């Protein structure tokens, strides 16, 4: 028997629409009803685009009835992280400074999704401007983890992960600057995929740190991540940093075969404090790969210990520059009663940005200011080179690197005492962005308390296919199977 509509994968949903077993309209109505019933408790959505979604579904159904060719995501309901710019639909990046902003254009990835027949259900919550690891930093609402609603969904793509895990969309797109797809995916039992830097266009993505940001899928299955990546990847004349490289058929990578695959295990990632249950799940995953013919290789990434400090200089420095555009003049909110131009800038920004964004702007401005640049920003960029070299060296001996995604499973609300403590939780995911390589998180187990655990795979630049192939095997052997979160109705 087929599972209920909300637990079909994106791949299965598209197949049922293509075969005529389900209409897109019926699927969309099902999801909209489920959002109306459940999302008050979960808090994933900032905007639900009911009318637009129903219209798009009717178009798909009419196209099918007229025997017109359907796109690969025809009839698949998708939730978009609010960092992605959507024509005619409010886009806030989780910030009050953009409250009510209706963009006049679609981002490239949004255009590509629509062209593939995907149906945009709405915009989902995130930490303000992607700066956070729990979605507690959203200026709008609290998003809960569907596996345990007393815990965070992770972040910054927490709305995406909660929506996918709770069956409130078939799949989602998010952004990842330092782990913002992989960490929430791990916390919510989903697949999170950060492509190689430049693999996916950033045009129409609210900028956080431009040399680190990438858009990627957050899905229920590895195959769905491959399918979504096929749709969104590729060069874009509007993003000069997008890579002009052919887009493989990523779904073909899921061969189920890891015989002879060389899997690197960096000892530096296992030396710090890692929760025992996370450690045990990663061990089990390693053994599962070995039993299927993979070869484990102990490797060293000696500069791992410096990644956190380097990241928290580079990312805030770029953010302080990118967020200069929010000036109270061109879009967003302006402070009332400003005495002069400086006052208008400073008060609009003071009122519009939340505490974490202010902290990062201050940190970035500190690191970039005259006299401090060499000690902080330049030093961090040099360390970035060392981290990249570590990966280049490692990938001469291995095909893929395996680590935990996070040191612990999902934590409780308000449990991180200081900003620094929150930053320390990102320790395993940051290096991937600094080096620009692809990374993914795949569910690999569950704690005694019923919280999902994720394993992270890191790959060579543009070798997304090997990550997907390895992830597919992990999913099949140690994944969560048909297990569903306890915090929402089945």
């Amino acid at each position: 028997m087929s599972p209920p509509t909300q637990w079909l994968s994106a791949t299965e949903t598209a197949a049922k629409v293509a075969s005529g077993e389900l209409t897109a309209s019926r699927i969309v109505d099902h999801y909209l009803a489920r959002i109306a019933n459940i999302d008050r408790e979960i808090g994933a959505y900032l905007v639900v685009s009911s009318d637009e979604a129903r219209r798009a579904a009717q178009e798909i159904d009419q196209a099918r009835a007229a025997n017109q060719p359907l796109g690969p995501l025809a009839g698949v309901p998708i939730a978009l992280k609010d960092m992605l710019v959507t024509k005619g639909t409010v886009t806030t990046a989780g910030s009050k400074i953009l409250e009510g902003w209706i963009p006049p254009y679609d981002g490239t990835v949004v255009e590509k999704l629509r062209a593939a027949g995907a149906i945009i259900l709405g915009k989902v919550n995130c930490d303000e401007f992607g700066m956070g690891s729990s979605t507690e930093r959203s200026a709008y609402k609290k998003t809960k983890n569907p596996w345990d609603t007393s815990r965070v969904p992770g972040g910054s793509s927490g709305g995406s992960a909660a929506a996918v895990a709770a069956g409130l969309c078939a799949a989602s797109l998010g952004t990842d600057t330092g782990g913002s797809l992989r960490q929430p995916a791990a916390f919510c039992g989903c697949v999170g995929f950060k492509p190689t830097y430049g693999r996916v266009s950033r045009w129409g993505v609210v900028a956080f740190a431009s040399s680190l940001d990438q858009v990627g899928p957050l899905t229920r299955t590895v195959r769905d991540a491959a399918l979504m990546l096929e749709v969104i990847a590729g060069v874009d004349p509007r993003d000069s940093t997008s890579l002009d490289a052919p887009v493989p058929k990523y779904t073909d990578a899921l061969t189920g075969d890891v015989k002879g695959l060389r899997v690197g295990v960096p000892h530096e990632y296992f030396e710090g404090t890692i929760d025992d249950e996370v450690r045990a799940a990663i061990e089990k995953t390693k053994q599962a790969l070995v039993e299927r013919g993979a070869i484990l290789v102990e490797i060293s990434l000696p500069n791992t210990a410096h990644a956190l400090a380097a990241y928290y200089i580079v990312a805030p420095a770029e953010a302080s520059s990118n967020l200069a555009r929010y000036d109270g003049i061109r879009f967003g909110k302006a402070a009332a009663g400003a005495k002069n131009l400086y006052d208008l800038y400073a008060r609009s920004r003071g009122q519009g940005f939340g505490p974490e964004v202010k902290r990062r702007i201050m940190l970035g401005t500190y690191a970039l200011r005259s006299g401090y640049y060499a000690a902080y920003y330049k030093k961090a960029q040099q360390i970035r080179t060392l981290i990249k070299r570590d990966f280049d060296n490692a990938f001469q001996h291995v095909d893929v690197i395996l680590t935990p995604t996070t040191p612990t499973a999902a934590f409780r609300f308000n449990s991180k005492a200081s900003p620094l403590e929150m930053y320390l939780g990102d320790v395993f995911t940051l290096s991937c962005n600094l080096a620009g390589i692809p990374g993914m998180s795949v569910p690999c187990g569950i704690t005694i308390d019923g919280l999902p655990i994720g394993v992270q795979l890191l790959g060579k630049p543009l070798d997304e296919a090997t990550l997907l192939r390895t992830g597919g095997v992990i999913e099949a052997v140690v994944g969560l199977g048909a297990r569903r979160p306890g915090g929402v109705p089945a």
Partner: protein
Amino acid sequence: MPTLTRKEVDEIAMLARLHLEPDESARMQDDLGKILDHFLALATVETEGVPAMTHAVPMDLRLRSDEPAPSLPASDALRGAPAREGDTFLVPAIINGGDA
């Protein structure tokens, strides 16, 4: 270099065009001080002769062909502006306007 003084916090806020209330400024001094202290370890990393990396993927920035194409109509671009007049953004006067 760290810990930060309150005066430094206020200078950085001015450079960042960010108005901070006094209690925010005090909290910022504490938070940033702790974060910067943590970053002191970077100074011990040997980076002599290591090039600084701006982008992870080597890329030659491409030029697009120099052909005129329609751009966003001014009315659309201005729609989100808090204050506008005709086809222009409205800002406080900066000449004879007493800009700080």
